[in-house]
């Protein structure tokens, strides 16, 4: 019996666990290690952040779900990996530290035959002074608890407007190297919607502040879609939606510092600006969770296993090249680490070979460009591919048998622009492939037939349906595997 250890129980880690349980559960041991007791359907945190949903509607206890399966759950934080074992044992192992109440801080080594690193991101609020809900002046919707706090502050802001005060609301990215603009994009429209419902929209100045070169970049270098007899860049539609809702925008911005009520930012032309605010939700940049790696002799091999940003190196081509020479082939297919055939990294935990958007910097040398997104759909696809590969390798395959390159897969993103069964709307975007492939699609890098965008009530229904379908699937209720990942 082999042991498969999965670090992380977010979308990627939990997807891998579900599929491994189905494929090899009972025959082999599966252990999920996560510092969080609860699973969180992050895309719906937006609705928690405007008071449309409660925390219980977007989270559930992992231990309860795994109890019904062959998966063992350890509530613990991964600290380091010994992929060659150590002086005492040749078995590779991962060192973890418990976060379970009553056992907090207790460390143990868990040996493994296969390891899947799905640790997700460290929300790197510390990269910008004054950013974030814990030690800063802005709120976040990156976790359910952050979203609850965001809603409390939003409701206080709405109350102040009801009493007649004017308020400035700033939503976007809190650093020049952020990704996940989509979450902020959804949040700004849901805040706008909430303000309209409360009858105070005229009291608010709403500003989008982002590191994108142009609106609609989303870390994918923007998309082209067919609309109204033209093939048009998504920027046109993103700007149109902002104007329609009376939202201003500032792009090409790196937030340098946040003080109480004031954001300091630099723009790509090298100039420095200040923006006063009353309520602000800014997404932090992401980094790896800080896992260390040691070889058999106990030497630190973190730099060999991980990229400088803390994400794990996999089967990508990390050769540094100028933007014009980037290619679809650079992107990983199997997510197997080059040095250790039994170690994989999926979701946000793997190191992308480079960005998707073109790298840009200000004359002061400040990089201002979105980093590559790894949203739910690609994360689930790569986790599923790795689970299938490991299952086949346990049956004798020498190499991973399944691939899920972001340059060969599409993604669908449904961005809520206001909830409500009859009045709600959402922007539904599909893109294929996520990473442009200019060899296959010379004009726009993507398949125009599968790359699309539209706004409407149908998108809201989709978002609502996805919320319930994916939570049902994640709870591994009867027939869960029939729901596509």
């Amino acid at each position: 019996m082999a042991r498969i250890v999965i670090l992380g129980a977010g979308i990627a880690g939990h997807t891998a666990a579900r599929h491994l349980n189905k494929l090899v559960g009972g025959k082999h041991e599966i252990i999920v290690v996560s510092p969080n007791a609860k699973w969180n359907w992050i895309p719906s945190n937006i609705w928690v952040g405007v008071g449309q949903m409660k925390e219980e509607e977007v989270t559930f206890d992992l231990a309860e779900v795994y109890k019904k399966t062959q998966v063992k759950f350890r509530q613990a934080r991964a600290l380091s990996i010994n992929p060659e074992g150590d002086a005492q044992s040749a078995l590779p192992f991962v060192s973890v530290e418990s976060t379970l109440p009553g056992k907090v801080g207790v460390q143990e080594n868990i040996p493994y035959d296969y390891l899947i690193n799905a640790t997700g991101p460290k929300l790197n609020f510390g990269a910008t002074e004054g950013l974030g809900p814990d030690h800063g002046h802005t709120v976040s919707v990156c976790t359910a608890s952050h979203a609850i706090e965001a809603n409390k502050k939003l409701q206080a802001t709405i109350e102040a407007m009801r009493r007649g005060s004017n308020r400035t609301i700033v939503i976007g990215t809190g650093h020049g190297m952020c990704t996940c603009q989509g979450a902020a994009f959804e949040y700004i429209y849901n805040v706008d919607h909430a303000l309209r419902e409360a009858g105070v929209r005229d009291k608010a100045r709403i500003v989008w502040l982002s590191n994108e070169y142009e609106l609609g970049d989303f870390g994918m270098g923007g998309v082209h879609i067919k609309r109204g007899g033209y093939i048009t860049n998504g920027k046109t539609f993103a700007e149109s939606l902002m104007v329609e809702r009376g939202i201003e925008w500032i792009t090409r911005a790196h937030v340098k510092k946040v003080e109480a009520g004031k954001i300091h930012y630099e723009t790509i032309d090298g100039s420095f600006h200040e923006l006063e605010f009353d309520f602000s939700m800014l997404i932090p940049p992401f980094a790896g969770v800080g896992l260390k790696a040691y070889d058999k002799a106990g030497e630190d091999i973190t730099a060999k296993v991980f990229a400088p940003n803390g994400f794990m190196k996999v089967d990508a081509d990390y050769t540094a090249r100028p933007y014009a020479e980037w290619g679809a082939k650079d992107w990983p297919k199997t997510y197997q680490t080059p040095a250790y055939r039994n170690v994989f990294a999926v979701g946000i935990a793997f190191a992308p070979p480079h960005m998707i958007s073109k790298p840009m910097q200000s004359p002061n040398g400040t990089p201002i460009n979105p980093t590559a997104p790894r949203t739910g759909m690609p994360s689930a696809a790569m986790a599923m591919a790795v689970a299938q590969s490991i299952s086949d390798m346990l049956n004798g395959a020498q190499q991973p048998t399944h691939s899920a390159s972001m340059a060969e897969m599409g993604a669908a993103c449904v961005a809520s622009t206001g909830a409500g069964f009859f009045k709600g709307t959402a922007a539904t975007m599909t893109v294929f492939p996520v990473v442009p492939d200019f060899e296959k699609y010379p004009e726009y890098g993507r398949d125009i037939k599968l790359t699309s965008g539209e706004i409407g009530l149908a998108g809201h229904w989709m978002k609502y349906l996805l919320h319930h379908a994916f939570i049902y699937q994640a709870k591994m209720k009867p027939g869960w595997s029939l729901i596509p990942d």
Partner: protein
Amino acid sequence: MSSKTVNKEPYQQAYYPPAPTGLTRFMRTCLIWQVVRFVVINLKILKLMAKSHH
């Protein structure tokens, strides 16, 4: 008696992007049309997913 005309300020950020017409806005929440779009979006996503798994 002359009425004062207030020109809308041109060349601002909001001056350039296309604005949806009344029909476009109506269609966004028109139940029958959105049921059709719901089916189309689902089919499109299924096709995209089918092409994505290797």
